[in-house]
């Protein structure tokens, strides 16, 4: 029987210097933690979906039944669609920045307010 500290070893870093993409590594650290938390919420949500489907089917909600559950094709599609929707929701600001890049005629409301106050 090997006694390994699974939590620590699962987190092991790959050999080689890690690149940081943001000017401040703290931003990257927070983004990384945020994505991990987002992932765990998605896991909980998928578990809840399983519980709901078991209840609907009249199957006893036991840990064993939750673990044994496999979605049929329709349920699998619905669950994947939920993931896609969820991810686009958490990345909203990035998409809005992308949209702003496409909309070159955006005005600044701050400047507009100053202008309107002056006239």
């Amino acid at each position, binding site marked *: *029987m*090997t006694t*390994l500290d*699974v*939590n620590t*070893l*699962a*987190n*092991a*870093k*790959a*050999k*080689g210097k*890690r*690149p*940081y*993409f*943001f*000017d401040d590594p703290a*931003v*990257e650290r927070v*983004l*990384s933690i945020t*994505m*991990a938390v*987002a*992932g765990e919420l*998605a*896991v909980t949500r*998928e*578990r809840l979906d*399983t519980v709901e489907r078991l209840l609907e089917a009249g199957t006893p909600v036991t840990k064993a039944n*939750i*673990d044994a*559950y*496999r*979605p049929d094709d329709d349920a*699998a*599609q619905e*669950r*994947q*669609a939920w*993931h*896609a*929707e969820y*991810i*686009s929701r958490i*990345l909203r600001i*990035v*998409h809005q*920045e*992308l949209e702003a*890049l*496409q909309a070159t005629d955006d005005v600044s409301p701050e400047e507009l307010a100053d202008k309107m106050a002056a006239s």
Partner: protein
Amino acid sequence: MAASLPPTYDRTAPNALGAKVNHDEIARFNFLTSVNVHLGTQLFPGTKLAFEQRVKPAFKKAQGREIATRVEVRDAMRTDPLYQTWAALRRNTMEMRQQTGRAIALRQLDALIARAKELNDAKPTLQLNPQTKIPRYISEVDNHCMPGSYYGELVPDDVSGPANYDLGVFVTGAGSMSARNDGGGRGVAKFVRERWPDFKPKRIMDLGGGIGSNTLPIAQAFPDAEVIVVDVGAPVLRYGHARAQAMGYDKVKFVQAALEDLPFEPNSFDWIQSTMFWHETSAPAITNGMKRIYELLAPGGMTLHAEQPNFTESTPLWEKFTKDWDAWYNNEPFWSKFHTMNVIDLMTAAGFQKDKLIEGEVVSDVEPGFYQPWAGSLSRHAPEKTNTAPTTRAWRGWYMFGGWK
């Protein structure tokens, strides 16, 4: 929702060594797969727009000339906020995949080792050699951010590294490698059978064959051949051999050796092949390796390799930058240099005749629903023609190169 969705993780084949992936771990992989799809199909096109609209013009303004090299693109892009976000998320998702896969493998490591032992013990088809020298290009960084790489051992008889690899590959390609991660090998077997129906190899080597996932379809297609997986890493071979045995491929051999020191007789192979191997080596390794391959092939034998194609004159700058991304940021250091080499010249320098060279493309052969239209924008190994600007070589699966002796 117009876009097609990736398959759920539970659609993959059960792990051959019996690794159990529980409900929440499946969900974790589903989340990460969807993040990869989102990054590849939605945000990645945005980084190109950022390049065209602000990075390129800013470079021109500052330098008084057009941006010209992929390294210039790389350095200029690093200041762009949209790119920073995409790149940080991509790197992070790879790390999360590794974390998730390792947690699954390590949690049940005793059972995995026991199962591998049961399948491996006293079998002459597994030949490990502890004297094998791990090349520097493997030992200095862990390729594609996989802690421990292919050879690392946490405990004696460890198989946790390859188990993690086998469990997690699905996430990065969003299923495009197939339910058993063998779409490439199946494609190669089909390609060879269709192109050369009379080719009946008696002895086949899969160089850098790893866990053999792409080797087994070749063994299946050529049941009379002696098939040998060669790799430097003991854990991948232990795992791969056990996996093959569990799947009923009890004749396939797994031999530990380095490309630099292949323990075989000259003229002794009819086919030496590799998939996704060379980009994880080095320039001297491929140059000398090709010569050694020529030596080991029997007259009338063939060598064939699945890789990303080298850049040509007409490869667009943006494509060069994106293809090199993994070299810089996913611990695949040789990939950038490899892109600039000319494998065809290498082959002729190794002794292959020009008129006996092979080029072609192999399309990943996978279950319905596993290769989505957008798969090429995710996997660095299987870019779709439609997802890249046209190059002189029209290809969509893997680029194949090789030659006859």
